[in-house]
């Protein structure tokens, strides 16, 4: 611990730059996945515990397409579209049946879905850790102390583009407006002629595509493994709990915060990188409880 601290602040402060950059990369992925979680939660009141597994599924899809020799500009749209249809299918088979049920049913059903997806991926691709090598140049800075693969910069740029596209879509398009109307009052939306079922299906499929995009980025800049999904789920839940539903700037700030925290934890003890999002989640829940109890309320 002391050694690492010395390394960070005395011997090689530039390592901080590396960690901060890595944290921003992780944060961008968390932000996409958390935004999707908040969207589904807010619109149809489904808490999707399989969120991280959708990310991993997207990652494996990219991994498979890459092994076929496809370039990134083709991989991303293919993953987006196929994850969209996968999400639609999951909605029809599972989510649609649990819409009116109490919240635990949705948690448990999506947890079951998470297990199933892990196992299927494990069955197809095996339990090994994988990554997609785009064979892009790597930049060095500060006497090789900081390395920035250009794939990560591309990924960050893509994340920003996707985020902006999503925001514009939600604000400007008819479908986006229908989704926001349904989130506020499903009954009123139905009276105004919005097909609620389609809006729900679209929202879930949209979330799935968003996760798929995040997964592509994960597979390019980090590693994927069939059982890594839960980390992203926990991180997304922490972000949404801290930022609230439908507050995009707060989601982005929390996402970068959790990304940085994860990376710094990983620097001190590599085993902690996996546990960090869970620790953040528990801390956020504790903090929310203290603020709520000042209002004589419980966290619900």
């Amino acid at each position: 611990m002391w050694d690492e601290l010395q390394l960070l602040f005395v011997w090689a402060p530039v390592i901080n730059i590396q960690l901060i950059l890595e944290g921003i990369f992780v944060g961008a992925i968390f932000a996409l996945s958390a935004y999707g979680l908040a969207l589904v939660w807010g619109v149809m009141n489904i808490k999707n515990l399989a969120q991280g597994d959708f990310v991993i599924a997207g990652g494996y899809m990219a991994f498979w397409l890459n092994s076929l020799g496809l370039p990134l500009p083709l991989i991303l749209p293919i993953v987006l579209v196929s994850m969209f249809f996968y999400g639609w299918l999951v909605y029809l088979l599972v989510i649609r049946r649990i819409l009116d049920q109490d919240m635990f049913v949705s948690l448990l059903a999506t947890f079951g879905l998470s297990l199933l997806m892990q196992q299927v991926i494990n069955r197809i691709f095996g339990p090994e850790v994988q990554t997609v090598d785009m064979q892009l140049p790597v930049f060095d800075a500060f006497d090789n102390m900081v390395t920035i693969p250009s794939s990560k910069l591309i990924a960050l740029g893509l994340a920003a583009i996707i985020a902006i596209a999503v925001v514009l879509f939600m604000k400007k398009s008819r479908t986006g407006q229908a989704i926001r109307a349904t989130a506020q009052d499903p009954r009123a939306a139905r009276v105004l002629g919005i097909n609620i079922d389609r809006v729900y299906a679209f929202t879930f499929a949209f979330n799935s595509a968003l996760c798929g995009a995040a997964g592509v980025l994960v597979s390019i800049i980090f590693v994927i493994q069939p059982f890594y999904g839960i980390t992203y789920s926990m991180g997304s839940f922490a972000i949404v709990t801290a930022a609230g539903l439908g507050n995009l700037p707060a989601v982005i700030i929390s996402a970068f915060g959790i990304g940085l925290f994860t990376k710094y934890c990983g620097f001190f003890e590599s085993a902690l990188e996996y546990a960090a999002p869970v620790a953040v989640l528990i801390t956020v829940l504790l903090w929310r409880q203290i603020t709520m109890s000042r209002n004589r309320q419980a966290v619900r």
Partner: protein
Amino acid sequence: MTNAIITVNNVSKSFGGVNANVDIDMQVESGSITGIIGPNGCGKTTLFNSIVGYHPIDNGSIKFEGQEISKLRVGEIARLGMLRTFQQTRIYPKMDCVDNMQISISHRLDSKSSIFASRRGEIRDRAEHLLEFVGLYSKRNLISGDLSFGQQKLLELAMALMNEPKALLLDEPTAGINPTLINGLIDRLRRANEDLGITLCVIEHNMRVIMNLASHIYCLSNGYMLANGKPTDLQNDQRVIDAYLGGH
């Protein structure tokens, strides 16, 4: 008033920019029936919620039997002996009526042994007696969620009485109740007050009911305490009439 059981002093509460209660002063005399009236949205239910601890108040003090309760939580206030019923009736919908009653016994003196007490005997007798009192005896074994809204309202009242509170705050007890039953309900409330010695504080829109029932009435308007006095005084108070007829 000398013998106040609930004393509300200078209480304010706002939600965002809306001043729901401003500098409210109110006293409920022990053993009395006190009414609160006012147009919709004037802050009656907010005042109730402040008294029983649903949200923090911005300033002021609320005392129950001389004890400051504005910082306590709902359960603690209930265990001091002050209960409220809800405007939207709340019962335990998947349990039958007798079970609803049996779990509503007073928890003021709860000890570890009463948690594990048997369900039979005296508690059950009292539960059935009170169900009889509100006229639900024949429905005692039904799942309470299957009862009609009015019946649920009566069940909620019976549950509150089962608890033997010192003070009971009723939020629109006659709303949604068949007009022919209202007289019976007034009668029961009065008997609960006289025979069981429970202080009642009632929010009510039905003027006939509240004028019949209460001995002292407070009138709220736009979050302010507009007037208070005996029912006959208020009936002739020009400010009250204005408030109800849309003065502002």
